């Protein structure tokens, strides 16, 4: 089973369970709201590629409104939201959300080669990734 299937199955289970679980329903709605509010700034990714890179061979773990993929050494967690269809990559050794290459995204380098700190909102935008639908380019 690939990560996309694990994620999609997990979303279906969460949505089914949320019919009788108000708390879970609120978590799912929270993810949907976050996506609706911010997704315009999010890069689109294939969840299979991300999980293969950071947590290869992992199984999805349901955790409230999230589905998590943990690397074998516990260094990385790929956290996928069930309501919002997005994911984040967390480095458990630095306690930071990171980019698609595991890089720290707090700073960026401008066209003149000068380094700057990213604002709070920019950092949050670049550490959220919209999950592509299967077959989406």
């Amino acid at each position, binding site marked *: 089973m690939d990560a996309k299937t694990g994620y999609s199955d997990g979303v279906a289970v969460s949505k089914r369970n949320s019919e009788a679980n108000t708390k879970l329903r609120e978590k799912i709605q929270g993810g949907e709201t976050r996506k609706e509010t911010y997704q315009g700034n999010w890069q689109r990714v294939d969840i299979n590629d991300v999980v293969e890179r950071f947590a290869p061979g992992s199984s999805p773990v349901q*955790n409230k*409104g999230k589905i998590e993929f943990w690397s074998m050494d*516990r260094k990385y967690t790929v*956290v996928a*939201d069930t309501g919002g269809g997005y994911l984040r990559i967390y480095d458990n050794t630095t306690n930071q959300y990171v980019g698609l290459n595991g890089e720290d995204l707090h700073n960026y380098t401008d066209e003149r080669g000068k380094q700057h700190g990213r604002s709070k909102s*920019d950092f949050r935008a670049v550490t959220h990734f919209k999950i592509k639908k299967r077959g989406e380019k």
Partner: protein
Amino acid sequence: MSGFVYLMHVPRDAEQVRNADGYAEEMSNVETFELTQEEFDYLDFTNRMFKAFDKEFNLIIMECEEDTIEAEDIDKALDIALEYAKKASSAMELSAVNKVLAALRFAKERGTFLEFDNPPNPKG
């Protein structure tokens, strides 16, 4: 009860925040207040204080996300927290609301903000 914690960070130095070059520098000198999972769940779902913050300040306080009550909203957040704190009765509930009140009072004293930071549960 789980020992897992949810974090509330408050910068100690408003001047440092004003002069910061970006988010990392803003958060480089903070006081951290920790909520257990049980306390977080109480404030989020039972007490509804966090839902009141969400509604008032356009936040979505939840796991694996960061959200901020900005400095200009701290007084209003304290008013809300004091109102919802009246619902607390058990030791756990009182502990939960008192931690939020302590974090907000510290932010008010320092002239800074409160950031919720809820990382993945390390127990997986």
